[in-house]
């Protein structure tokens, strides 16, 4: 069972992770919850899992390998740089998913010390029809607008193996200094 405040916590943490992990080249990222994904036409998904003894969370980012999406993920390239190859494009999307889930995983760490995450996998969207078999008790969908012009979608599914209860205080922001070198 996932308590209502834990559901709100998963929701809040994933939205924050999408906002921090999706920008490329300083782009603005807007994220909002949506009820259904009926019109999503994306063909591919990048999927990662974040798991503890009590739950498995599956984060899914839907995308299309079209020109607009390729251009977004190549925004940080120098002027005149060649277009991304297919391998480079898929790797960038996968790494973006990795950074998003990395933040989600870190933010869940204080509540679930043994939480861990998978590496990203890119698969066909058709595989989503099997997600129901996981028996998830929490499913949330999100619309993500990148740089004000490119819209992608994401889904969070959480399957629980026991009582999942935690509270994310909206007034407390995560205190991880990304990019800084911590010397030992």
């Amino acid at each position: 069972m996932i308590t209502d405040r834990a559901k709100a916590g998963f929701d809040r943490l994933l939205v924050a992770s999408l906002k921090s992990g999706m920008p490329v080249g300083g782009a603005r990222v807007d994220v909002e919850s949506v009820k259904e994904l009926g019109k999503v036409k994306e063909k591919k998904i990048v999927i990662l899992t974040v798991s503890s003894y009590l739950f498995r969370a599956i984060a899914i980012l839907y995308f299309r390998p079209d020109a607009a999406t390729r251009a977004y993920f190549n925004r940080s390239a120098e002027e005149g740089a060649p277009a991304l190859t297919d391998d480079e494009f898929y790797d960038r999307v996968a790494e973006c998913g990795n950074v998003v889930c990395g933040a989600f995983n870190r933010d869940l760490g204080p509540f679930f010390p043994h939480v861990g995450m998978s590496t990203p996998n890119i698969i066909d969207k058709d595989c989503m029809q099997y997600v129901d078999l996981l028996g998830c008790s929490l499913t949330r969908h999100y619309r993500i607008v990148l740089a004000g012009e490119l819209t992608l979608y994401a889904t969070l599914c959480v399957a629980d193996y026991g009582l999942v209860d935690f509270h994310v205080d909206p007034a407390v922001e995560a205190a991880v200094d990304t990019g800084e070198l911590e010397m030992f």
Partner: protein
Amino acid sequence: MAQILVVDDSSTVRDEVAGFLKRNGLDVATAVDGKDGLSKLRLDPKLKLVVSDVNMPNMDGLTMAEKIRGELGNKTVNIVMLTTENSPIMKERGKAAGIKGWIVKPFKGDAVLATFKKLVEA
């Protein structure tokens, strides 16, 4: 001869980190996972710094660090992890393996360049 070995299964990260360091005057080699990193360090034991991801196929970065110190007997190369992970348990394992530092992705080159240069000159 390379000074720094960048180990990551993501070509995006390898290109980003290696490209930044090369543009700033450092000699850089790359490896696609811990197994590849270990074999490249075996071939070039004079490398000064290894910058490695943690979660990778075939061999993860922490196992690679343990093998660099144990199997290769290389006690001098500096090892810095570059990862989305921030778990105290993983950091403790890294410290026990003799790693020098930890960076939470995403990589911000300007924040670490001066320290990397000191580590390769040491």
